[in-house]
């Protein structure tokens, strides 16, 4: 659904934060955009790739975030404004290039947008990417809603050129995935002309020469750029204070938390007592401006996600205030007034401020509250599960059965993707390690090299098709080269499914929907000399037999490509179900089956439910997608699949 109006400057549109970031980049006149899909950043590229032709820009899904950033930098070096967008973990992948890029500077404006995921709503970890800016000496801007996401992204390009360095814009899930009113600005009409400058001024080695040497000299220059950024930030209109001239409590906040603070102060009717300083330029800290704000109150509360980033910088600053300054009392993460982990929420901020200001707060009527507390227990849980019809369910079922039959305590090493749900009931708890993109194979490399220590457990590594191309190829090469023993399952569903079905090099289609070279994963693996087999996981028996056979064979790395298209992608294209599935209640033996209801208790497809009154399994026709897999796992043949009429 990511799309933006291209015309209509001056009008107000409802834009997703990520669409607003894309719009800001377009208003800044970008000619180049690169990204790798990752929640909560994906819609930035989804948006840009949908309008490349109209805008005459290049937009690509790169193979990973490091390449995306490198490609964007290349464009910048040749005089084209460029953006690279990524989720929090993406900037980790790009970090080695980023720290070197900080040394060389840029050509035309270059911006990296990093979208953090406080609360790990769709990530394997919580991470505060702001720290990378401090580590690498890069200017950092934090956006707080859709409107300023657009405005600040646009400003970041000017700033980048002025400072001759890449500028980092930091968003979070609650901004990227919130829609809000955005007043559109003008789109520039300028034509882009790219040229890489081959002549540079030897007396000014920092300009138009993109090498990190002379190293020490350029490190010094980098710090000078940062000092200049601080000067800029002292006068930025995006840092502002609202509240009384002198306040009983000063809140310093940034990003999405700005709204929680504003709401809390209003909710508690403390507008005349509490002031809010919204900081957009959080690194480097504009010390003079912040010092001025600190004179408003002796009590200071920090509200930010996720680390005490501003909090620590301000404390460092406070330690250097003149000796006659009044003693300040700081509240925040260090004092445990604000939690150090998890996503922040208006409730937390309201209660913290109420506590500090000595006022009472009741979210709602107290009788209602009591009633509700009794009722929470009747609401059933909703553990995340793979979608109905998902090929990964078949893969996990096959793996579970094969490992059980093998009987040597085999297990699966995985990573991040839809198949991460394999660590829970939906994947039969088969996934036993889960870390970064492609890490399952790396970890399996180590585990598969422990035979000298008496290690005999079979090791299965698991990776999605997009993730395989992103980060796993070196690990597979390593396994082949170092003779590690593991079976790699590449779950090839022909999409980057978890983030919104984006194409990748294995799909034969570019970000803009154009046909391109199709990177043949099977041929690529074969070229490494590794043993490769291909299975359709929906052919359950064959898949289980294949896995059993490979588990029994002697060592070395082996690859099985589990090839079956993502059900969501298939359904969208074909708009019909392959089978009509039903349960014959006369054959279904309900609780007497297997170890008590093998289909609903163990197999757990959302489309297959248990009728408590009939005490039989049944199909939920509002949910079932007619894949027919359950018909193959029913030991009594009570589940019937009939080919659907077209």
């Amino acid at each position, binding site marked *: 659904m990511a799309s933006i109006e291209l015309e209509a400057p001056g009008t107000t549109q*409802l834009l997703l934060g990520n669409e607003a970031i894309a719009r800001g980049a377009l208003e800044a006149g970008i000619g180049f955009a690169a990204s790798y899909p990752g929640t909560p950043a994906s819609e930035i590229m989804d948006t840009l790739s949908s309008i490349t032709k109209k805008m005459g820009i290049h937009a690509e899904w790169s193979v990973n975030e490091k390449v995306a950033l490198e490609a964007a930098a290349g464009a910048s070096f040749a005089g084209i404004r460029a953006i690279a967008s990524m989720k929090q973990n993406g900037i980790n992948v790009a970090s080695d290039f980023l720290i070197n890029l900080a040394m060389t500077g840029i050509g035309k404006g270059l911006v990296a947008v990093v979208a953090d995921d406080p609360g790990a709503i769709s990530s394997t970890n919580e991470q505060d990417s702001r720290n990378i800016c401090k580590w690498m000496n890069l200017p950092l801007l934090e956006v707080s809603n859709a409107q300023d996401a657009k405005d600040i992204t646009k400003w970041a390009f000017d700033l980048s050129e002025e400072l001759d360095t890449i500028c980092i814009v930091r968003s979070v899930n609650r901004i990227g995935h919130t*829609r809000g009113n955005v007043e559109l600005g003008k789109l520039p009409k300028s034509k882009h002309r790219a040229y890489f400058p081959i002549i540079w001024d030897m007396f000014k080695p920092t300009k138009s020469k993109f090498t990190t040497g002379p190293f020490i000299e350029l490190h010094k220059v980098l710090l000078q750029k940062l000092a200049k950024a601080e000067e800029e930030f002292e006068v930025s209109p995006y840092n502002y204070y609202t509240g009384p001239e002198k306040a009983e409590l000063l809140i310093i906040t940034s990003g999405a938390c700005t709204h929680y603070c504003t709401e809390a102060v209003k909710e508690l009717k403390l507008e005349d007592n509490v002031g809010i300083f919204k900081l957009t330029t959080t690194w480097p800290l504009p010390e003079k401006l912040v010092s001025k704000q600190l004179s408003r109150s002796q009590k200071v509360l920090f509200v930010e996600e996720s680390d005490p980033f501003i909090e620590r910088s301000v404390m460092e600053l406070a330690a250097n205030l003149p000796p006659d300054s009044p003693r300040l009392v700081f509240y925040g993460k260090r004092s445990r007034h604000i939690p150090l982990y998890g996503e922040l929420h*208006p409730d937390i901020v309201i209660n913290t401020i109420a506590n500090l200001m000595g006022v009472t707060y009741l979210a709602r009527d107290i009788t209602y509250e009591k*009633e509700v507390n009794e009722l929470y227990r009747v609401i059933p849980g909703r*553990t995340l599960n*793979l*979608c109905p019809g998902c090929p990964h369910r078949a893969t996990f079922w096959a793996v579970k059965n094969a490992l059980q039959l093998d009987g040597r305590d085999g297990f699966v090493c995985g990573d991040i993707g839809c198949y991460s749900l394999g660590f829970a*009931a939906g994947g039969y708890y088969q996934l036993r390690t889960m870390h970064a993109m492609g890490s399952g194979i790396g970890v399996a490399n180590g585990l598969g090299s422990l035979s000298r220590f008496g290690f005999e457990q079979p090791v299965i590594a698991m990776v999605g098709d997009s993730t395989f191309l992103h980060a796993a190829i070196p690990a597979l090469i390593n396994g082949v080269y170092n003779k590690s023993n593991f079976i790699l399952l590449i779950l090839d569903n022909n999409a980057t499914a978890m983030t919104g079905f984006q194409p990748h090099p294995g799909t034969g289609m570019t970000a803009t929907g154009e046909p391109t070279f199709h990177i043949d994963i099977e041929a690529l693996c074969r070229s490494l000399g590794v043993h490769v087999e291909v299975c359709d996981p929906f052919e359950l028996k064959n898949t289980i037999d294949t896995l059993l056979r490979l588990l029994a064979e002697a060592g070395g790395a082996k690859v099985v490509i589990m090839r079956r298209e993502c059900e969501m992608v298939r359904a969208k294209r074909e708009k019909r179900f392959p089978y009509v599935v039903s349960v014959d209640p006369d054959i279904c033996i309900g609780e007497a089956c297997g170890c008590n209801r093998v289909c609903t208790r163990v197999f757990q497809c959302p489309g297959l439910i248990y009728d408590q009154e009939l005490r039989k399994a049944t199909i939920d026709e509002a949910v079932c997608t007619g894949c027919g897999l359950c018909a193959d796992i029913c030991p009594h043949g009570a589940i019937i699949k009939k080919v659907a009429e077209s």
Partner: protein
Amino acid sequence: MKKLSKEPLNMIIAGVGGQGNVLLSFLIGKALVQNGYFVSVGDTYGASQRGGSVASHVRISEHTCYGSLIPSGHADVILSLEPAETLRMLCRFGNPDVVTITNTRPIYSSDVTSGNDVYPKIDELLKLIEKLSAEVIVIKATDEAFKLGNPIFANVILIGALIGSGVLPLDKKSLEPILQENFPKEFDANMAAFNTGMKLAGH
């Protein structure tokens, strides 16, 4: 621009991943912005969509864009695609003045089908929902959607019911162009679903 019954007016749109929450909140939000309101729509994306409990927070104002999360106990309207989710949202965001519009068709989670958890009987569930709401509009949206040929229409039926209930400052005219724009090929079917919802809400 009609005056809002409350500033800001807070609405939760509840459901289960895959039911079309994001689309629902997008269509309503778009209609509100086109009618001059400030809107903030916070959605759930990504992993949480995989069969999990999802809620869109829609915050409507005459003056400013509010933050994307409604504080606990502060919902004015709860529009829900799934009855157990209705109760979940009432428990967290409800208050004695809340107006609830709810579908009746359960979606059983794996916790329920596996036997680890019990799904309440629908009559009991509706009684609890009534107890916690100032007003409840019960819509058999999925049943009606099946009559229209596809269970997914439940979400547009609920938009119809929402507009029919009069809790938002929007009418049929303000939604029509939005449905036209978003469903150019299936406009008639979606309009039929919308009208069904309007009718079920008493219009």
